[in-house]
C-alpha cells in the first residue's frame, strides 16, 4: 500500500505491507534509529513518537495508519541546529544514563509542556508513567522536564 507520511517536516512516500509496524517503518525504511524498540508489547514506551503532536507507542501502530499524518521523532526535536529546551534540560540536569528511554522521555515531555506549560512534579510523573527507565530512578528525568517547562515559559514571555 502506498503511504505518505510527514516525518520531522519531510514528506516520505513508500509502498509498504499493511502489517509493517510504524516503529519499523521509522527505523528500517527511514533509517531514523533514535526511536527505539524495547518490549515490543506496548509496555515500556521507548518507541514513543508524536503523531500530530500526540504521544503514541509506535510498536502498536501500523505504518499504514500513519498515512497522511505528521510524525515527530527525537531527530525532529532540534531547533535550527540547536538543542530544543527539553534536550538542553536533559543535558543540563543529567536526565539520562544509558539513553535508551531518553528519546521517548523527551517527546512525552515535549507533548506535556505543549499542553501544560507549568506541570507539577505529580503531573510530570503521571505523564511519564507509561515510559520505563531502568537507570535513573526518574528523579533527574522529572527535574529535566520541569526545567524545560520553565525555559519554555521564559522563552514564551521574552
Amino acid at each position, binding site marked *: *500500500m502506498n503511504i505518505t507520511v510527514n516525518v520531522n517536516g519531510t514528506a516520505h512516500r513508500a509502498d509498504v*505491507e*499493511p*502489517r509493517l*509496524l510504524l516503529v519499523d517503518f521509522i527505523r528500517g525504511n527511514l533509517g531514523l534509529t533514535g526511536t527505539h524498540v524495547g518490549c*515490543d*508489547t*506496548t*509496555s515500556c*514506551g521507548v518507541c*514513543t513518537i508524536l503523531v500530530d503532536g*500526540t*504521544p*503514541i*507507542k509506535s510498536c*502498536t*501502530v*501500523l505504518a*499504514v*495508519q500513519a*498515512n497522511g499524518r505528521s510524525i515527530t521523532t527525537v531527530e525532529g526535536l532540534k531547533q535550527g541546529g540547536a538543542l530544543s529546551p527539553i534536550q538542553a534540560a536533559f543535558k543540563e540536569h543529567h536526565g539520562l544514563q544509558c539513553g535508551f528511554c531518553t528519546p521517548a522521555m523527551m517527546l*512525552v515531555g515535549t507533548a506535556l509542556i505543549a499542553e501544560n506549560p507549568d506541570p507539577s512534579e505529580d503531573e510530570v510523573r*503521571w*505523564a511519564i*508513567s*507509561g*515510559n520505563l527507565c531502568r537507570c535513573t530512578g526518574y528523579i533527574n528525568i522529572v527535574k529535566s522536564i520541569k526545567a524545560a517547562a520553565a525555559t519554555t515559559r521564559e522563552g514564551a514571555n521574552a
Partner: protein
Amino acid sequence: MYPARFDYVAPETLEEALSLLAERGSEMRILAGGQSLLPMMKTRLAQPDTLVDINRIPGLGGITRANGQILVGALARHNDVIRSDAAKGNHTVASAAPWIADPIVRNLGTMAGSLAHHDPEGDWASVALATGAELTLTSSTGSRTVPATEFLVDMFTTSIRPDEMVTEVRIPAHSSNGGGNYQKLERKVGDYATVGVATSLELGADGKIAGAGIALTSVYPHNLKATEAEAAMVGQSPSPELFAEAGRLAAEACDPAGDTRGSSEYKRHVVDVFTQRGLAESLVIAQGGGS
C-alpha cells in the same frame, strides 16, 4: 513480533465500512485504537483476514450527554473520556478512566473497542456492567441497542453480529443523588488489574438505596456483575454493615485464579475490601459530600 498477513482498508464513511462488514464481516476485524487488537495479532492469537480501520471516518469520536445518558462514540479515546465534561456525569466512568492502561496507550485506545474486544481483564466492561450501560450496534440495515449484560457474553466473546460495529456506548448519567467509583489494584501503571471493582449507587428521596451496581475485574473468567450483592442493597439504608455484607457477597461470587499477581485467597479478600471501599466512596458522592 509480527502479525500474520492481512488486507487493510480505511473507509472514509460509516456507510462504506458497514457495507464491507455486510459483505464479509466474519473475516474482518475493526481497528479503532488497536491497543488490544494489534498485540493479539502480533502474538497471532488473532489473525483476521482484513482490518477495517475506522479512524478516517468523521463523527465517531464525540462524547456528549443527551436524555440522561452519556454517549461515547466509537473513536472516543480513553484520554478523551478523562478530559470530557460530559463523561463526568457518571462518577464510575470518571473514576475508572485514569486507571485504564497508561497515559500513552490512553491516547489511542477506545472504550467501545475495549468492550467489543472484551478481554476479561479489561476495566471498562466492569464499569459498563455496574452502571447499566448499553451499546449501539450498527449495520447497513439499521441500529439496535443492547444492554452490556447481553452484549458481554464471555471472555473475548460478545453478542455482536459479523455485519455490525459498535458505534456508541450509552452510559446512564448519575442523578444528583447518585455516586460511583472504580477501585483498581495494579502492580504497575499499564498492567492488568490484579483486582478491579466498579460500584454505582442511586439513593431515593428517603435516603435509601434505590439502585446499586457492582462489577468485578480480573477475578472470574469474565467481568462479573455481582448480582447478589447488588440485590442485597436495594431498598436498604446505606451503612458500613450493609456494605460489609455486599463485600462478603461479592467476594463469594468471584472465583479468582491464583497467579503472579496474587493468590486466589488474596484476590478474594481484596474484592471484599474494594467493594466496601468503593461503595463508601460512591455514597459520599451520592450524599453530596464529594464531586
